[in-house]
């Protein structure tokens, strides 16, 4: 199958239109299964009680949020080297979902922190890195929306994400180091050994659910972006699916 065939917005648009309902369905299925396992089957944590169950949203959101940024960086490389418009559009489509999931991770982390340690915010390495990731997402979105010329915005955004993603491991490492130096919170949010298989499966399924959701949302959004950019193009008029 010639993958290049789909690197044009023209051919990708209908493909995305057919694909996203499948991913949405998968997301729903995984979410139901994961939440069932996580909320009802997995045993109660003996230290934290029912509250710990927020982990089933917090961890997947955090993992997929980070993953999306790396995917964006990959598309960024394609956008700059191969000069494909669709790569840049995919980046633009991914960013809001990535930002949302990362913010969700922060929020659930905060909700978890309150009953567990008494504060809404804890400056541990992972949460602080997640906060910085939110800033990176916001920065990207701000940049591409501030530049009026779409071509320039695409390439500038791509360069920014590539440079930032090289920085992400450095940021993570430095924050972790900072945290150990300052002997701050020594509790890791997911510190408890994930003992029971129900917990493991619950987490895995919820992570998959987040991933499928992210794909579905991205496909829907990229269709909107394609349709906005190619406004007036003949192929679009006759092809609105």
């Amino acid at each position, binding site marked *: 199958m010639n993958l290049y065939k789909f690197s044009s917005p023209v051919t990708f648009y209908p493909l995305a239109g057919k694909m996203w309902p499948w991913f949405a369905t998968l997301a729903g299925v995984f979410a139901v299964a994961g939440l069932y396992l996580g909320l009802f089957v997995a045993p109660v944590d003996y230290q934290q009680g029912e509250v710990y169950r927020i982990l089933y949203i917090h961890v997947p959101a955090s993992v997929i949020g980070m993953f999306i940024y790396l995917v964006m960086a990959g598309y960024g490389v394609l956008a700059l080297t191969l*000069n494909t418009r669709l790569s840049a559009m995919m980046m633009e489509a991914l960013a809001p979902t990535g930002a949302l999931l990362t913010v969700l991770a922060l929020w659930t982390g905060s909700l978890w922190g309150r009953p567990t340690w008494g504060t809404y915010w804890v400056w541990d390495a992972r949460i602080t890195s997640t906060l910085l990731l939110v800033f990176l997402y916001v920065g990207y979105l701000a940049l591409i929306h501030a530049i009026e010329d*779409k071509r320039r915005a695409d390439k500038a955004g791509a360069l920014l994400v590539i440079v930032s993603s090289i920085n992400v491991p450095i940021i993570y490492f430095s924050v972790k180091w900072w945290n150990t130096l300052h002997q701050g919170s020594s509790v890791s949010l997911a510190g408890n050994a994930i003992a029971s298989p129900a917990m493991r499966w619950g987490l895995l399924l919820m992570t998959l659910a987040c991933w499928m959701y992210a794909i579905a949302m991205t496909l829907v959004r990229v269709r909107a972006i394609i349709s906005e950019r190619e*406004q*007036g193009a003949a192929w679009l008029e006759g092809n609105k699916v």
Partner: protein
Amino acid sequence: MTLSVTGLTLSRGPRQLFANLSFTLMAGQALVLRGANGSGKTTLLRVLAGLTAADGGELRWNGEHWKALCAGQRAASLYLGHANALKDELTAAENLAESLAFDGVAVPDSVQRQSLDGMGLANRHHLPARRLSQGQKRRVGLARLALARKPLWLLDEPTNALDSEGVALFSRVVAEHLHQGGMACIASHLPLDIAAPVHELVLGEAPA
């Protein structure tokens, strides 16, 4: 030396500026771009300079393919846009020296001074550029053109702020450049009187 453009296509948003534009420029020739405001004269010059990438088409110099801002393109072209490209804080003489330094040509100070004098800036060498009039700033640019020894000149509305004496100077400089085998692509809505073979390209019209 030959500059050849084949099948150039470029769109800016919903507007298509060029569709399959092709032409060839040979040594000693000048191409004048005409067209209404917004017809793409500046954009075409920038594509030839490599500053703007076209959507499709090819640019070749002496048969060699040019990608945007490749070394060959930068070495051979001199682009003067709307802005004067002078630093306000530097004097006329310093501006000329800096421009030539970055053009990679070594021109002795005395020759630079002579050139500025020749452009009618005799008592203005040591004035900071912010104190020069628009026309005088353009003349500093002319001095650079004359000294930089680049084969391909890409000029956007070069006579804009020049008085009639300045326009005559400009015509002389361009004619001399063409006689020496150089080539020029000039966007202008004003009439140019150059004593050399000049072709016109009118943008914004469908091909006949």
